[in-house]
């Protein structure tokens, strides 16, 4: 890819960062509140995101809308596996509720000035690395 073609991804990232800060989805407190069922806020965000996502994907499927590369828009199939999805998901959830940030907000929060997030990012890279080492030994 040419350097110029990366600019659009930079702008998507900037937009993503702004939206997640302004929506308070990067707030540790909002995540806590969600897991305590004390507010509709995060459910509203995730719910409307999924709702409009379904709408977008159904329209593009029916309209055979193509991406920039000329291929019809599609989301690649996720690997199935009950163990990996439920166990991996639960482990992720434990961490998500503890630090209140998932792998997008981590970077965004760094940009907002939460520099101790670097520790979380390094630890999550380490977590991914350890998964890679243990992959063959884990139930999927």
């Amino acid at each position, binding site marked *: 890819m040419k350097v110029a073609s990366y600019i659009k991804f930079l702008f998507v990232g900037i937009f993503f*960062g702004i939206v997640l800060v302004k929506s308070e989805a990067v707030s540790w407190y909002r995540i806590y509140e969600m897991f305590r069922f004390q507010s509709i806020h995060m459910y509203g965000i995730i719910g409307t995101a999924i709702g409009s996502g379904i709408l977008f994907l159904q329209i593009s499927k029916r309209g055979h809308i193509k991406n920039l590369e000329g291929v019809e828009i599609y989301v690649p199939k996720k690997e199935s596996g009950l163990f990996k999805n439920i166990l991996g998901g639960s482990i992720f959830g434990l961490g998500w*509720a*503890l630090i209140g940030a998932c792998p*997008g907000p981590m970077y965004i929060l760094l940009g907002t000035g939460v520099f101790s997030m670097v520790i979380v990012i390094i630890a999550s890279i380490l*977590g991914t690395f350890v998964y890679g*080492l243990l992959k063959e030994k884990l139930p999927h």
Partner: protein
Amino acid sequence: MEFILDPWPWYISGPLITLVMALLLYFGKTFGMSSNLKTFCAIAGAGKYSDFFRFNWKDSLWNLTVVIGAIIGGYIATQFLSNASVTDLNPVTVQELSTMGFSNSGASLVPDELFSWKTVGSAKGLILLILGGFLVGFGTRYAGGCTSGHAIAGLSSLQKPSLIAVIGFFIGGLLMANFILPLLFKS
């Protein structure tokens, strides 16, 4: 300008997140932030230890560019697009957190009780951040995605593995917020 500077309502924010997913799909890519963690491993040479990290990470540079953008976006949003408004949390949440030792809930995006350098300087504070990050990084790769890849992109495309993973996210999250956090922050 007030409507930009104030926090945005959820019914605006949700569809805007979908716009991010839609733009990436239009550019021929898939929304998935946790893949970057795997890319960082590959760049650092993790391929020497596991086949899992033996892939051409240059193909993932677009996603690292999104990461750089996200950091810049976080900076722009707090520096130029925000006012001093406090997160409008449920008063019950604020009360509950205060009994757990969290003060000024909602005044900032993250609590000092977890992220201030003073907290990080204590053994407990440091361990909690490392533990949380580790669980997120390990769990997301095990599950094959995170909030963006599974909850947004996966559920939008009606995929069953994503539904199971999101149920998992909630099992873990509910356990942490309802049972473990109260133990960790007992006053």
